């Protein structure tokens, strides 16, 4: 197995946590930029844009991570080319990381509903 195929396997295995990281960067970057430009309170048709965008990003990230979890749980996910027990281990971890990702994404996304944006 060369470095590229192994990297692919790692990316698949860590998918849940990588989605968490991407979501984190997105919501943090969006909030920081909106506040720096005075757009923290911007609304569209009465809906506060920043919290709405964060909720949307959170839902999308939850869906994607949920899909990773489901695929791994059903025996899909990064198959690799190892022996059966190694592959089962990798799948269990894939599902586990996705579970941890789900919890963390939800946890990080929830404040958008509770906390003022730029105060």
């Amino acid at each position, binding site marked *: *197995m*060369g*470095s*590229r195929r*192994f990297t692919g*396997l790692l990316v698949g295995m*860590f998918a849940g*946590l990588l989605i*968490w*990281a991407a979501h*984190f960067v997105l*919501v*943090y970057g969006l*909030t*920081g*930029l909106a*506040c*720096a430009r005075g757009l*923290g309170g911007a609304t569209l048709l009465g809906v506060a844009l*920043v919290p709405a965008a*964060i909720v949307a990003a959170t839902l999308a990230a939850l869906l994607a991570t949920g899909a990773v979890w489901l695929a791994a749980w059903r025996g899909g996910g990064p198959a*690799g*080319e*190892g*022996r*059966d*027990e*190694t592959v*089962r*281990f*990798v799948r*269990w*971890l894939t599902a*586990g*990381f996705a579970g*941890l990702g789900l*919890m*963390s994404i939800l*946890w*990080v996304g*929830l*404040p*958008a509903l*509770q*906390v*003022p*944006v*730029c*105060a």
Partner: protein
Amino acid sequence: MTERGDESAVPLPPPGTLANPGPRPPEELQRLERAWACPTGWRFLTVVNNSYVGVIYIGTAMLFFVLAGILGLLIRVQLAVPENDLIGHAAFNQYFTVHGTAMMFLFAVPMMEAFGVYLLPAILGARDLPFPRLSAYAYWTYLIGGLAFFASLLFRLAPDGGWFMYPPLTSYVFSPDVNADIWLLGIGFIEIAAIAGAIEMVVGVLRTRAPGMSLDKMPIYAWALLVLAGMIIFAFPAIIVATILLELERAFHWPFFMAEKGGDPLLWQHLFWFFGHPEVYIIFLPAAGLVSLMVPALARHPLVGYRWIVLAIVGTGFISFGLWVHHMFTTGIPTLSLAFFSAASMAVSVPSGIQVFSWIATFGRGRITWTVPSLFILGFLFIFVLGGLTGVMVAVIPFDWQVHDTYFVVAHFHYVLIGGMVFPLFAALYYWWPQLNGQTLSHRLGVWAFGLMFAGFNIAFFPMHLTGLLGMPRRVYTYPAGLGWEWLNMISTLGAFILAAGVALVLFDMLRRFGLRGRVDADPWDAGTLEWLPSDNYGTRSIPLVHTRDPLWEQPDLARQVDAGHHFLPGPVTAAGRETLITSPLDARPQYVMRLPGPTWVPLLAAVTTAAFFLLLAFKLVAIAIVAGVLTVVLYCVWMWGSDQGEDEPPVDIGAGIRLPVDRSGPQSHSWWGVVTLLLVDGTGFAALVWSYVFLWTVSPEVWPAGDARMAPLWWLAAGAALWVAAGGCFAWARRALRRNAHGMLRLALLAGLGVMGAAYAATLYPQWGVAGLDPTEDAYAAIVFALLSWQGFHVGVLTVMVLYTLARSLSGRLHAQRRLTFDNTMLMWGYMVGQGLVVIGLIHLFPRAVG
């Protein structure tokens, strides 16, 4: 058990197979011993074997622990009574800065890496780490840099801006002397050692495991080191970039952190803590990994929840990157942003909790033995959990606002760090000490030492929670009487000395019983992991076939079989003599035999010149520094010249009818994996720089160009980008020529590549000062543009050396289609550099136009 196709590896023999069942020829062991003999006398300095480098590495880290600890005691003496004038404020500032910096950079991280260097090959069943000379080089840079750093105290030149060196205090206006430069350049280059260690760990864990040790059978400690390495790869570049930017500001007045010129001191805080928070876990996770190795042996029960611990270690590693702003809750960052970090700070306690419960469950299921390591582990659990609880408290934003920069925080992080790392470390020192010479440390003294350390620690640091809540700020050299802080401070000081007495007792016992024997044949704990196999300078006599997580418990007679040479590779198979097995990353199936280098002076010499380069720069002795830098590059080339011997040996028999090639090139080779890991470090550093660009634009859009003013015409972008692509094309051309062994064409392509790369860089650099007229001292925009250009320029310089070296290999007949590691490494770097060049030129030309 199904074997899926992996053309690069051979199938594993079934469990229980003896690879070499017959008696071994008597001279085989002698040849193995001769090949791995430790150099004696003054030539000991040339040693590269991990068993020796690891031990002196651990010893050096202990030395810095003691020195930094003495500074801690001096701090406590100064604070014992109010209005004390024993140590002046200037010296006090230096003491706490050096105490914190040394504990983190010279003790905690290096100690964990040192343990990795020592233990990793043994627990994996390898003969050595994949890059032994790199470990030796890392060690020597660390030793010289660390000693120079402490020596600066003697001349009152030590840094005094706190371990996190916040600008503007540490920039040229408020810290004009060299103190801050000693930190930036002195500590900056020691990070080379950390990164070198990370590359060793990644390649070591993934490629040098004993056959059969698939990912699901790897000791937890190996997982911890893998995550440690991953975290170093993604965290350390941020501090390296921060260090470079602050040094550029100090030396050349490029205003990255000066608000009046569009810079922002918060940029430093972001970069520092993006490194600084994961740093805590970089320290804690390997220590927790050591605990996971020790607990099963001490509880006489396999680790409960193996998979959950792996999940927890990796999860902690990831989430720890989402915590950095919790060190910046009082800096005026938007409330919602703070809430993200508060949430992540609480989320990270979940995986940490999983590990703690798992250890408790293992102790509960097994039968705890009341040895000194057990005591230290129980002490660790108690102290670390308390530190974790106060961690959740300071993750609550309003609470943090109250206690930020008070002694409450000092108490919290000492509970986490001393609890999470120092107590496991002392458990580990007691546990693995018998590996040195077969002797165990004194149980009686150990119990006393533990009692003093545990009591002393809590007496010293628990009261600090209260002094903090009573409002005592950190880093004050004295305080007035009458604020209710006096008796708490006095108790803390007493506790610190009790803690120190405990440490001194351990050191006394260690000095009494020190001795290096090479041979390991004691297993006093009746442990299940491979490092307790009988071993010598060469590691184990033969490399075991593993099919369980605790092989010494579950594979009866393994120790005898391995020591009698009945497993893989029982003796030297090449002229080099020093070899180890490279196995596949997932299932650890044998792939090839790797030749390892023996003793050499080069790592030590290169470390001396590297240290000279950085330290002379700190003292502004630029001309001599450049000489040292050139010498370093020459030494690197000398170092590499003997490597890349090509696939010149016929396949060799390692046992069980398996014949393996000797050394490999291409994506399977350990060298390729090492360079890819290095490029990840490089790419992360570049990402930190690009992030700095965007951050500065976010805070100071007014200094960014509006319209076409201060911008070069777009055709410069087209020309530059085309030249970068052409430079990449030259290398593709060279690769084709090498594959056909067309050496003239190869050299022509390499030379053309050098020329085109130079032109591409010129077309990227020139328009910024020649056409747009940017002056990097003018504002933060110009400064960050020139920082990006300098970064790319550095890479062009490195590539130039690499291409010239590749040409030299070609001209001396050391480069052809079957001997091409040098070329492959240069090619990987080249591809990366071209991609980076395109991003740099695209960002500089397009970003201001897109947002302007």
